[in-house]
């Protein structure tokens, strides 16, 4: 009971989160509060808060997940010396996220957007080793590209005089604005050119990953793009680009997750593929379905991360799935959490994921602008989803390797079980309740019979493939080592995106420094002038060091020659 009373404020937070979701879903009007902060000749920046049903639901989700994660942190980070510093950073992050959600003004949104990037830098770099620092730099700099793009879009919108980009009907809009906004969202949500940071950011502590990298930071990009949908949909180029890149990321993440061995990296790649699915649904002009999936995905992905954290923490920080086995006996509650999460993720009937994810797939099949390639890749991505989620959870839960043979049940602290409970509610019931109350999520789906059957059967195909691998009926993909390195490095994406950028940056920086600062500017400036003056004075000395008579003779000769020239010309 003492534990319950100490957790009471967090439980209140979780309950208020669910309450906010509930009220948001039945809210019929939107409230906008606007306070002018700065007024000048022609510009005015104002601080505004938009309480819409979308923002209320999202704020509720963030509150639920942050309350659960904060409760979980009491157990996970109990041995941390600087616990208060950690929790301060976490709450600062949550504050920036809520700021970003509620503010529709692009200038004030930048405060939350920048704050997200900086606090996630500090959180990822929390453990003091090199890997954390490099992951944090990668995260912060990729997010910074997004910040710069938001600044560029602010400058483009300066012509309009207002920055309320969410319900925006501009007088004259430059069509490049949609491309800029889409790219900004893509950096935050780790789509193709910028997807290297999300698996690297798993160097953060697991509660941070659960809060930041599954539900809040990465969905900020999706949220910006779907809220600015009017602006984004004005340019077909932006939506086409988004579709191609999100499908690419879907297949990339799915195929890399099939082969990865690090538990947290697999979950990160799973997040990446679901984010691509959300971006894909925005690109086929369905923003609110993307939002639905965003909310349900946030809850069950956070649940999956928390379960994985329980597993990792109880096994002496082993993150490799080859070192974990038979955990259904030692950690039943964590295992049930993970199982519920992946069942919901794969889209098993009538769980949360079924409502949101299958809606996206069905509506995409109804869309006539899809090519065969998109179709195939989408289905492939979904098969990968069920395959790798089955793989990690079942090998961790039911597999048997010979490292860990104990059958004792480990103690699972109440602070770990309470978040599971609160997130179960979301993972199981959220899809049903939101889908039935919000009219924005309701669609009429008309499909051929084979199409709807294939959608229904996809999770089971993945499971069947996993069973085939287990019983060695089919192929064993992990014996192809050359292919393995290709997939483990995420299709060599680092060599494509971050490596050329880094090399160009450093080489050009060095060249600039050596050629200009230490080269030409010195030559034309101080050192060069100094040297020239020295030479001139040396010459002067040579001239003046001869005997006086020689000089007299020489100069008189010159004068006579000049005079004769003048006289006789």
């Amino acid at each position, binding site marked *: 009971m003492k534990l319950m009373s100490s957790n009471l404020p967090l439980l209140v937070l979780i309950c208020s989160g669910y309450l906010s979701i509930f009220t948001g879903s039945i809210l019929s009007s939107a409230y906008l509060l606007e306070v002018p902060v700065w007024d000048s000749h022609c510009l005015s920046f104002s601080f505004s808060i938009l309480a819409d049903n979308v923002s209320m639901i999202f704020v509720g989700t963030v509150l639920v997940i942050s309350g659960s994660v904060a409760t979980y942190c009491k157990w996970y980070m109990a041995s941390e010396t600087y616990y208060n510093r950690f929790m301060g950073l976490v709450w600062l992050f949550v504050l920036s996220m809520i700021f970003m959600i509620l503010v529709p003004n692009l200038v004030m949104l930048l405060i939350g957007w920048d704050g997200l990037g900086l606090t996630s830098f500090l959180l990822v770099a929390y453990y003091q080793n090199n890997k954390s620092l*490099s992951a944090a730099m990668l995260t912060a700099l990729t997010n910074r590209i997004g910040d710069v793009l938001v600044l560029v879009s602010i400058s483009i919108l300066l012509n309009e005089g207002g920055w309320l980009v969410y319900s925006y009907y501009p007088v004259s809009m430059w069509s490049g604005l949609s491309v800029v906004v889409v790219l900004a969202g893509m950096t935050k949500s780790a789509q193709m050119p910028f997807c290297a940071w999300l698996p690297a950011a798993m160097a953060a502590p697991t509660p941070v990953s659960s809060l930041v990298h599954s539900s809040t930071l990465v969905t900020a990009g999706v949220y910006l793009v779907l809220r600015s949908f009017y602006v984004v949909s*004005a340019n077909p180029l932006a939506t086409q680009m988004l579709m191609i890149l999100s499908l690419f990321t879907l297949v990339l993440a799915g195929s890399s997750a099939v082969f990865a061995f690090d538990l947290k990296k697999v979950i990160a790649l799973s997040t990446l593929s679901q984010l691509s699915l959300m971006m894909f649904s925005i690109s086929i002009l369905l923003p609110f379905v993307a939002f639905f999936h965003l909310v349900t995905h946030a809850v069950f992905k956070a649940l999956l991360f928390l379960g994985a954290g329980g597993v990792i923490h109880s096994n002496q920080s082993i993150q490799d799935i080859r070192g974990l086995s038979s955990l259904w006996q030692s950690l039943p509650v964590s295992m049930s959490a993970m199982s519920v999460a992946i069942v919901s993720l794969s889209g098993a009937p009538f769980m949360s994921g079924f409502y949101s994810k299958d809606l996206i797939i069905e509506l995409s099949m*109804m869309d006539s602008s899809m090519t*065969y390639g998109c179709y195939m890749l989408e289905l492939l991505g979904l098969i990968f989803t069920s395959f790798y989620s089955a793989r990690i959870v079942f090998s961790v839960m039911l597999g048997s390797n010979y490292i860990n043979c104990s059958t004792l049940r480990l103690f699972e602290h109440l602070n770990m079980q309470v978040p599971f409970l609160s997130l179960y509610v979301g993972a199981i019931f959220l899809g049903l309740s939101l889908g039935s109350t919000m009219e924005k999520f309701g669609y009429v789906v008309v499909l051929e019979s084979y199409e709807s059957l294939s959608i229904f059967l996809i999770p089971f195909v993945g499971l069947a493939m996993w069973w085939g691998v287990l019983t060695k009926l089919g192929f064993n993909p992990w014996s192809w080592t050359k292919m393995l390195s290709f997939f483990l490095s995420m*299709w060599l994406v680092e060599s494509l995106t971050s490596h050329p950028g880094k090399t160009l940056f450093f080489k050009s920086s*060095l060249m600039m420094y050596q050629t200009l600062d230490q080269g030409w500017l010195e030559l034309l400036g101080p050192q060069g002038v100094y040297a020239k003056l020295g030479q001139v004075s040396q010459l002067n000395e040579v001239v003046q060091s001869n005997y006086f008579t020689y000089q007299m003779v020489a100069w008189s000769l010159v004068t006579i020659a000049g005079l004769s020239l003048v006289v006789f010309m």
Partner: protein
Amino acid sequence: MASFRGLRRASSCILSPVIRSRPLTTSLCLNGGNWNKDWAPAALPKNEEERAAKAKNYGMIPEDYKPMSNDGTGFGDYPDLPAIGAHSRSPWEHYDMPHLKRNYGEPMHPEFDALSEDRLDPAFATQPGYPPLWKQFLILATVFGVFTFIATFPIYRFKPVMPKQYRHGYNTDANVQMTHYTFEPATESSE
């Protein structure tokens, strides 16, 4: 490590001229406990016995001992050790001081404190800045292959739904028919 390595490579080429402007003792005295007072630089050895004695003093065999050159950049009879950073040393050996990757009594480079694990290593400057050619082709082939796969092969099949209604101005094709509804009041004759 991966992204920070580039930064380390950037700074690994500045090792000698900047730091060697400090006297030798201030550099190594920062590593309290590893320095030996007998290692303080003295006059250069003049004959073979002195050379052997100095080598023994520094813990090296006489064939390896070579004092630094006397052109103003050396420190007397201090041996000219290669600048190997802690990153390049073998991680599988059992060192006496694992955090420094050094054994007791091993001669220390004058810039030893800059060659530690979390600082510089000159070996980074020799790494190639780009992946091998086959890898570059593989990356480009993958990316363009997937893009081509998505972008070609359109689906033409009958769907019992109306064509999607876009906003005005979204479809820039000239041949898309858009119906514009006008609202006139119903006349008496049409009831």
